[in-house]
């Protein structure tokens, strides 16, 4: 536990000192929210604006997490630290986990910043019936998106170009998770993909809590899917590291 906490804190320090990640975290979520809300503003429907405002808040975490998480291992490679952390006695999954949670902490900022931005620029006042459950839903979104990023980053150990996967998933994720477009509008064939993405359930939970409905069902599914990500990542981690040691892909940049 101590290892997780200390490594989380030190990785958060690295992220906070990074101009690139700082730029992503500060500016991008606000730009995405602005774009989404400008589209919704055309109808002049306050309920639709609230819908989009909540979705836009989660959109920022998704973007910062999926892109950053897949470049995480590449960053370690470039720094020459990947081999060192792999050669440590600590299981590699436990090395990556605090890094992804440090990214989730940055993602949480984007939620708060987006909500304030929505209020300041678009005059959207969040009307939340159940604040504790709303906050819990946000935390669930941050944690499960971090776990999804964790799963993606593990795959990058073996496959050097899998960092591109994060970038490729960024925009489809906005649609598939129902951040700014209702899932009912998607083709039926894509719905199972949405159900496999934990943020879909977290955002549903946020909206339910805001509307005064029970979010527990959504949050339970969200937690289960998130845990499945973690278990899959831990299982894959061992196998992909062994594969990387066999195929000599750890040191390649």
């Amino acid at each position, binding site marked *: 536990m101590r290892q997780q906490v200390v*490594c989380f804190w030190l990785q958060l320090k690295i992220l906070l000192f990074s101009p690139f990640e700082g730029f992503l975290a500060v500016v991008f979520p606000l730009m995405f929210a602005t774009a989404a809300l400008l589209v919704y503003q055309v109808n002049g429907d306050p309920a639709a604006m609230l819908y989009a405002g909540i979705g836009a808040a989660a959109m920022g975490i998704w973007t910062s997490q999926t892109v950053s998480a897949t470049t995480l291992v590449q960053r370690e490679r470039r720094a020459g630290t990947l081999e060192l952390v792999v050669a440590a006695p600590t299981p590699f999954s436990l090395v990556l986990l605090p890094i992804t949670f440090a990214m989730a902490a940055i993602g949480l900022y984007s939620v708060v910043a987006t909500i304030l931005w929505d209020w300041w620029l678009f005059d959207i006042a969040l009307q939340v019936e159940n604040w504790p459950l709303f906050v819990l839903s946000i935390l669930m979104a941050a944690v499960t998106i971090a776990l999804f990023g964790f799963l993606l980053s593990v795959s990058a150990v073996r496959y050097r170009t899998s960092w591109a996967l994060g970038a490729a998933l960024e925009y489809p994720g906005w649609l598939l998770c129902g951040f700014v477009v209702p899932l009912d509008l998607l083709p039926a064939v894509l719905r199972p993909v949405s159900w496999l993405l934990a943020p879909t359930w977290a955002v549903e939970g946020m909206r339910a809590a805001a509307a005064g409905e029970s979010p527990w069902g959504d949050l339970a599914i969200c937690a289960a899917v998130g845990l499945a990500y973690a278990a899959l990542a831990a299982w894959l981690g061992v196998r992909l590291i062994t594969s990387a040691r066999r195929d000599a892909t750890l040191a390649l940049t």
Partner: protein
Amino acid sequence: MPLTETPAVEARDLRRTFRTRQGALRPTRRTVEAVRGVSFEIAPGELFGLLGPNGAGKTTTIKMLITLLIPTSGSASVLGRDVVGDVREVRRRIGYVFGGDRGLYERLSGLDNLRYFSELYGVPPREQKERIGSLLELVGLTGREGERVEGYSRGMRQRLHIARGLLHDPDVFFLDEPSIGIDPVGARELRATIAGLREQGKTVLLTTHYMFEADELCDRIAVIRSGEIVAEGTPTQLKQLVSAGRVLEVETYGVSDDAVEVARGTGGVRSVVVEDRGQLQVLVVSCEPGAEVTQHVLAGLDGTRVGRVSHRDPTLEDAYVELVTR
């Protein structure tokens, strides 16, 4: 004959093959044998040198021993633990440092880097502060530990690497060209640190390009060439491989390949190496004992501008060059 009943490091017919693929439409596959049947033993407390030119297989050998690469065939153990089957235990008991600028978190301070790796290497929290303090003292970074690593000189980074590698007090220490790119003063300090490790009873495997470094530090040396060990022994024993002869050095300006081949074909000549020294090319000719080759070599240089001609006794570097160019 084994050196001891339980060597600290043991490699038995270690092999490693890399497969590469090039081209998208018509991919061509290539197989490179980086290490071809390397065997050696290192006794506990011994400082063992692995010397060889670039691409000889030194780093690949070390990476197999520290569990970062799985051997294609053969076996290796560290402190009796198999490097493939007992990975966690091997990792607990070894330290690894490589040369160059990389391998540290630039945006963290030296102290935070050591704290981070202390956690990953399972250094008990109560011991961390004292351990880090004593290691900073050992590598001469006390007072600079609060600065971010991005502001460190190459020598400071290398010393921080050494401290990182020693955090968990490993029994066996692998140093892969640790002095590369360090200025002479820094390299001297580094050699003193490495010598100190041996005095503490650590087993050290060191790879280096610098012969004087190997000569000064190593108890035994193995010379590796094209993935195979071509000689092994104490520095004195290796020097004796060529000490029975003499070395002729001829300074030339613009020596041709044909002239070098003529020198190589001269009776009594063991090897010829051309060293570039500014505008000069120096022919380093290793000769058999009693062989008088000077006139023949100079005759072969007809038409080439020749400078100073001298003779000297062979050094460890001559032994090394002869071994890797045979």
